[in-house]
C-alpha cells in the first residue's frame, strides 16, 4: 500500500514540500463484496477535512483499513484542484476466513491449539497468517517432543458465505522423539554420569526411569547447558565453556546429544580484603562471609554469602536488617595468579532508610486491613529485610494468596532517605466444599456435606452486592458440617472464627456448636441411644514474649452426653456433663502452611475440668465428668536440599484424675493407630492419633479387652518424615514422603514405659488442593509384632492408609 501520484495529474504532489489541502471527496474503488460507505466511515476522513499531503492523515487512514484485517491491498490515488484534494482508495479484496477445523488430532489438542493459532474468523487469509499458524502448531508439538509433526493446510470456499474460505488444518503428529544418549567430550575432572545429572530436563531414555521424561525440548536444553556451566563454576572451574554441542538423529524417533566442553583450570581463593566498611570491621565481616584462604573458588556460593543466603547468615543481612537499604557490596578480583584469586570487597554502606508508605496491590477480594495488620514493616521504622521476609511468610500463612507469588517490592527514595514498600498478592480460592458418601463401618452408609469459608465477612453479609457468591474479604472463618445416614447417625457442627476480635490486636475468638445423634437398632423399647451436644468458646492471643512467634489459646467447652440403654463406663441411662477449660501455649515459625521448608512449632496444652471430687465427696462422677489432660506436640522442619525437607515430630499425651481413688471414665482417652482419622466410630471427647502400619485405634498396650475398646490414658509417638516436593502448583501441591515412626499407648500408668514402642516405616504421597484440602495415601510396613490382644494376621505386615485433611499428630 502506498500513495501514488496520479500519472495524468498536472500538478504533482511534491514530497519535499508538504501542503495543506481540503478534502473535496473520498471515493472507494475495487470493492466487490464490501460496502464503500462503511469503509469510508472506517477511514475517518470526510469531505471538508483539512489534511496535509504528504502527511500522517493518509497513512493513518490506510492503517485503519488494514486493522480491519479484511483487505488484501490498499492503494491511494490523489487528484488536486487548487487547495481541494480528491482521494481514491483502490482496494483489492481477499477471501475472508469463515471457519477453520483441525483433523488428525484429538479434541483436547485441537482445543489447545485454537488458543495458540493466530487465525481469526472474519479476517482475510494471507500467506503470513498461514505461516504463523503452521509455526504455532509446530512449536506446540515441539514442546511435546513430536519433532516430526507435519502440518497441511487446505483452503476451500465457503458455500454459504460469499468471498469466504474454510480452512482445514491437517496435522500428522508422527513419532514422539526421545533422547537415546547424551555424551560428553573433553571432560576430565568429572565423569559423564555426574555431568549428565546436571542436565535437569534433558535426560536419556532408560527402561528403568519410569518417572523421568526423556523428551527433547529446545528451550529446556539451552537452560540445561547453562546449568552445566553453573555446575562447573560452583566447582571452581570458572573458565569452563561448551566448545560445541550437537543434537543428531539416531533413528526416526531417537536423538543423540554430544556436548564438547573445555574445562579450563580449577581456581582457589587467596586473600580477601575489605574496603569501605565503617560499621563492621574486616575480621567480623570475614567471619560472616565464612570463606577461607585455599577454598575452591565458587562464584554462586560467594554471591549467596554476600547477598542472600536463605539457609543462614549473609553479609547483606547485617546491614539490611538494620536499615542500610542502600548497602552495596562489589567483590572485585584484584589479582589472578596461577590458580589463585585475590578478592577485594568494595563496600558502600550508605545511609539508613526509614519506611514511609506501605501499599498493597492485587487484593481484589481481601480487604486492606486484613493484610495490613499482618505486615511487620511499619511506617516510621527502620527498613529490615528480615521483617520483609517474615511478612511474606505470614501473608502466605493466611492462606488467601498464592504463596509462591507474593511480591515484595521496596521502592527507595534516596533523597528523603525513605523507602516505600509495595506488597503484591494474587488471590486464590481457599474455600473448601466437601461432599462425600462412604461406608462408615458399623453405622453403614454415611453422607457428608461440608462447607468451610476461610475468608468470610459478616460485615458484608447485609449488602447483597458483596455476595459473589458469598461475602468475603474480612478474614473470618465459617465452617458448617453435616454428616448423616438417616435415622441412626446424624452430626451437625458449626463454627465461626473472628481472627482479630475488636480490630486492635490479633486476639481470635472462636465459637462452635455441635450436635450428634446416634441410635442403635434394637427390639421394641430396647433401642439404645447416645446423643452428644456441645458448645465451645475460645480466645486466642499472640504473644510478644519470649518472642513474637508465641501464642496462647484459652477455651471453655461444655459437652452433654445423653444416654439411654447404652453403656458408657457404667452409665446406662441419663445425662452426663463435661465442663472443661483448655489452655494452650504454642510457638510456630513455620514458613509455609502447605509445604513447610523450615521452621518449627510446638504446643503444650492442658485441658481440665473443675476438681469436683476434691470439693465434695457426694458428686456423682458419672454426672459430672472429671479429668485433666496434658498434651505436648513438637515439630521441626529442616531443608536438606532444594525441595527435600526433613520433618521430625514428637507427641505426648497424659490423662489423669484429681483424687487417687477416682478411676478414669471412658471420656477423653487416646486411641492410637492407623491414619488417625477416627474411623467410623466417631465418639466426641476422644483423641484419635495416627500410627501408620497398625490398624485404626488398635494400639493399646493392654490385654484388657475393655481398655482396648475404651483407649489408653498415656501415649507417646515419634516421627521422622522426609518430604520431597513434586509439584509446587498452588492449585494442587503434591509431595512424596518416606517415614519412620514409633509410638505406644498405655492403659494405665503402671504399664507406662516410654521406651517400649511399636515401630513402622513406609512411603506415601500427599496432594493439597485448595478446594478439597489435603488428601493422601501411605503404604506402611509394621516393624514390630501386633500389640497384645489385637486380633489379626500376625504375618501380614504391610498396609495402606488413606489420609484426609491435615494431621497434627
Amino acid at each position, binding site marked *: 500500500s502506498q500513495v501514488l501520484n496520479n500519472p495524468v495529474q498536472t500538478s504533482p504532489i511534491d514530497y519535499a514540500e508538504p501542503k495543506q489541502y481540503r478534502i473535496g471527496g473520498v471515493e472507494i474503488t475495487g470493492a466487490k463484496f464490501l460496502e464503500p460507505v462503511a469503509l469510508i466511515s472506517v477511514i475517518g476522513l470526510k469531505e471538508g477535512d483539512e489534511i496535509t499531503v504528504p502527511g500522517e492523515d493518509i497513512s493513518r487512514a490506510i492503517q485503519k483499513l488494514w486493522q480491519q484485517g479484511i483487505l488484501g491491498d490498499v492503494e491511494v490515488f490523489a487528484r488536486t484542484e487548487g487547495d481541494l484534494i480528491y482521494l481514491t482508495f483502490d482496494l483489492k479484496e481477499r477471501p475472508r476466513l469463515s471457519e477453520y477445523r483441525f483433523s488428525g488430532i484429538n479434541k483436547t489438542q485441537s482445543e489447545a491449539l485454537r488458543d495458540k493459532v493466530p487465525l481469526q474468523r472474519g479476517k482475510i487469509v494471507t500467506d503470513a497468517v498461514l505461516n504463523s499458524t503452521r509455526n504455532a502448531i509446530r512449536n506446540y508439538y515441539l514442546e511435546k517432543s513430536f519433532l516430526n509433526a507435519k502440518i497441511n493446510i487446505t483452503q476451500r470456499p465457503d458455500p*454459504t458465505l460469499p468471498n469466504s474460505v474454510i480452512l482445514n488444518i491437517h496435522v500428522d503428529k508422527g513419532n514422539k522423539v526421545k533422547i537415546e544418549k547424551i555424551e560428553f567430550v573433553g571432560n576430565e575432572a568429572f565423569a559423564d554420569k555426574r555431568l549428565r545429572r546436571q542436565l535437569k530436563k534433558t535426560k536419556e531414555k532408560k527402561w528403568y526411569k519410569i518417572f523421568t521424561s526423556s523428551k527433547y525440548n529446545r528451550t529446556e536444553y539451552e537452560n540445561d547447558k547453562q546449568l552445566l556451566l553453573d555446575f562447573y563454576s560452583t566447582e571452581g572451574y570458572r573458565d569452563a565453556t561448551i566448545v560445541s554441542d550437537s543434537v543428531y538423529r539416531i533413528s526416526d524417533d531417537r536423538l543423540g546429544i554430544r556436548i564438547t566442553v573445555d574445562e579450563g583450570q580449577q581456581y582457589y581463593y587467596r586473600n580477601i580484603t575489605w574496603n569501605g566498611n565503617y560499621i563492621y570491621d574486616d575480621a567480623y565481616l570475614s567471619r560472616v562471609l565464612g570463606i577461607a584462604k585455599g577454598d575452591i573458588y565458587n562464584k554462586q556460593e560467594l554471591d549467596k554469602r554476600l547477598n542472600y543466603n536463605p539457609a543462614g547468615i549473609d553479609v547483606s543481612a547485617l546491614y539490611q536488617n538494620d536499615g542500610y537499604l542502600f548497602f552495596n557490596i562489589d567483590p572485585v578480583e584484584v589479582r589472578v595468579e596461577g590458580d589463585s584469586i585475590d578478592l577485594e570487597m568494595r563496600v558502600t554502606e550508605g545511609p539508613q532508610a526509614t*519506611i514511609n508508605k506501605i501499599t498493597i496491590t492485587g487484593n481484589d477480594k481481601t480487604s486492606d486491613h486484613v493484610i495490613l495488620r499482618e505486615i511487620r514493616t511499619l511506617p516510621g521504622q527502620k527498613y529490615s529485610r528480615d521483617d520483609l521476609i517474615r511478612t511474606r511468610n505470614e501473608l502466605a500463612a493466611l492462606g488467601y494468596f498464592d504463596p509462591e507469588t507474593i511480591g515484595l517490592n521496596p521502592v527507595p527514595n534516596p533523597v528523603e532517605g525513605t523507602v516505600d514498600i509495595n506488597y503484591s498478592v494474587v488471590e486464590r480460592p481457599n474455600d473448601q466444599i466437601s461432599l462425600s458418601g462412604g461406608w462408615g463401618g458399623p453405622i453403614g452408609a454415611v453422607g457428608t456435606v461440608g462447607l468451610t469459608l476461610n475468608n468470610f465477612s459478616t460485615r458484608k453479609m447485609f449488602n447483597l452486592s458483596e455476595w459473589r457468591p458469598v461475602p468475603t474479604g474480612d478474614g473470618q472463618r465459617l465452617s458448617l458440617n453435616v454428616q448423616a445416614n438417616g435415622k441412626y447417625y446424624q452430626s451437625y457442627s458449626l463454627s465461626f472464627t473472628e481472627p482479630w476480635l475488636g480490630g486492635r490486636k490479633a486476639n481470635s475468638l472462636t465459637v462452635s456448636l455441635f450436635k450428634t445423634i446416634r441410635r442403635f437398632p434394637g427390639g421394641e423399647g430396647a433401642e439404645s441411644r447416645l446423643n452428644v451436644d456441645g458448645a465451645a468458646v475460645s480466645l486466642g492471643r499472640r504473644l510478644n514474649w519470649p518472642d513474637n512467634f508465641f501464642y496462647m489459646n484459652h477455651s471453655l467447652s461444655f459437652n452433654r452426653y445423653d444416654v439411654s440403654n447404652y453403656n458408657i463406663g457404667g452409665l446406662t441411662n441419663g445425662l452426663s456433663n463435661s465442663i472443661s477449660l483448655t489452655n494452650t501455649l504454642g510457638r510456630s515459625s513455620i514458613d509455609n502452611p502447605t509445604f513447610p521448608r523450615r521452621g518449627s512449632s510446638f504446643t503444650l496444652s492442658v485441658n481440665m475440668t473443675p476438681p469436683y471430687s476434691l470439693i465434695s465427696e457426694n458428686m456423682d462422677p458419672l454426672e459430672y465428668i472429671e479429668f485433666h489432660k496434658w498434651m505436648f506436640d513438637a515439630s521441626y522442619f529442616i531443608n536438606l536440599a532444594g525441595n527435600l525437607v526433613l520433618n521430625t515430630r514428637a507427641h505426648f499425651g497424659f490423662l489423669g484424675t484429681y483424687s487417687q481413688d477416682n478411676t478414669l471414665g471412658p471420656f477423653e482417652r487416646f486411641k492410637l493407630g492407623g491414619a488417625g482419622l477416627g474411623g467410623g466410630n466417631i465418639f466426641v471427647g476422644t483423641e484419635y492419633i495416627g500410627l501408620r502400619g497398625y490398624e485404626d485405634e488398635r494400639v493399646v498396650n493392654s490385654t484388657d479387652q475393655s481398655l482396648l475398646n475404651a483407649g489408653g490414658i498415656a501415649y507417646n509417638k515419634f516421627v521422622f518424615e522426609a518430604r520431597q516436593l513434586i509439584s509446587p502448583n498452588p492449585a494442587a501441591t503434591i509431595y512424596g514422603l518416606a517415614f519412620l515412626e514409633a509410638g505406644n499407648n498405655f492403659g494405665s500408668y503402671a504399664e507406662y514405659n516410654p521406651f517400649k514402642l511399636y515401630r513402622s516405616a513406609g512411603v506415601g504421597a500427599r496432594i493439597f488442593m485448595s478446594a478439597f484440602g489435603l488428601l493422601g495415601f501411605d503404604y506402611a510396613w509394621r516393624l514390630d509384632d501386633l500389640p497384645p490382644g489385637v486380633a489379626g494376621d500376625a504375618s501380614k505386615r504391610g498396609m495402606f492408609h488413606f489420609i484426609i485433611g491435615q494431621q497434627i499428630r
Partner: protein
Amino acid sequence: CSNFQKLLKSNDVTKKYQAALEYYEKEEYYRASQLLDQVTPLLAGTGESEKALFYQAQSHFKQSNYILSDAYFRNFYTTYPRSPLAEEAMYMQAQSLYQQSPSYQEDQTPTITAIMAFEEFVTRYPDSENVPEANSRIEQLYLKLDRKEFNQARLYYQLRYWHSAVVAFNNFQREHASSPYSEEAAFLKLESQYRYAMESVASKQEERFDEAIDYFQSFVDQYPDSRFKRNAEQFYEQARSELERIRKNTNNQANL
C-alpha cells in the same frame, strides 16, 4: 429446538443480525449479545458493522458484563472515531470501567483506570451533555481513593502503632490535602503524636511533645471550628503540662 437455538446454528449472517436487533429492542440482551458476538467479525467492512459493534457493546453492558463492554466500546470508538455514536461509546467505556471499580478496601487499580477514562472523555468532549455526570463520577472515585488511604492510616492508629500512624497521616495530608477526611486525619495525627510521646523514653519525650504542640497549632489554624477542637485542646493542654514537667526536671538536674 427453539427459534433462538436454530438462529444460533444458522449460517445466515443477515438473519442473525436482524434477529439480534429485535432481541435488543425487546431488552433480551443475553440473546442479542450471543448473536452479535457471532456475526460482528463477519460483518466487518459492511454497512451494518458500525451499528452491530455498538449494540454488541451495549448488550454486554446491560448484562453487567463490564469487562467485555469495556473492550467493545473501546474497540468501537477507536474504529469509528467519526461516528455520531463515538462520544456515547467513549462515555459508556468509562462507565464500564466505573462499574468495575471495587470497594475501597480492595486493590484500586481499576478505579484509577476509570478516573483516567472519564478525564479523557471530559477533555475530548467538553461540550457533551454527559460531562456533569462524568465529573461527578470522577469526584466519587477520587473520594474512594481518599477513603482508602485514610482508612489505611487510621488502621495504624487503631492498632496503636502511634509512630506509624503519625507517618501515615502525614503522608495522607500531603497526598490528599483537599479530601473531606483531612480534618479528622489532622486530629488523629495530633492524638497519635501525643500518645507516641507519652510512650517514648524520657530522653526523646521533649522533642516529641514539642512536635505534638506543632501539630495542634497547625490543626487549629486550619480548622478553627473543628468538631474535634475540644478533644484536641485537651491533648494540647496535657502535652504542655508534660513539657513543663520535663523542663522542670532538666532544670533541677542542671542546678544540682
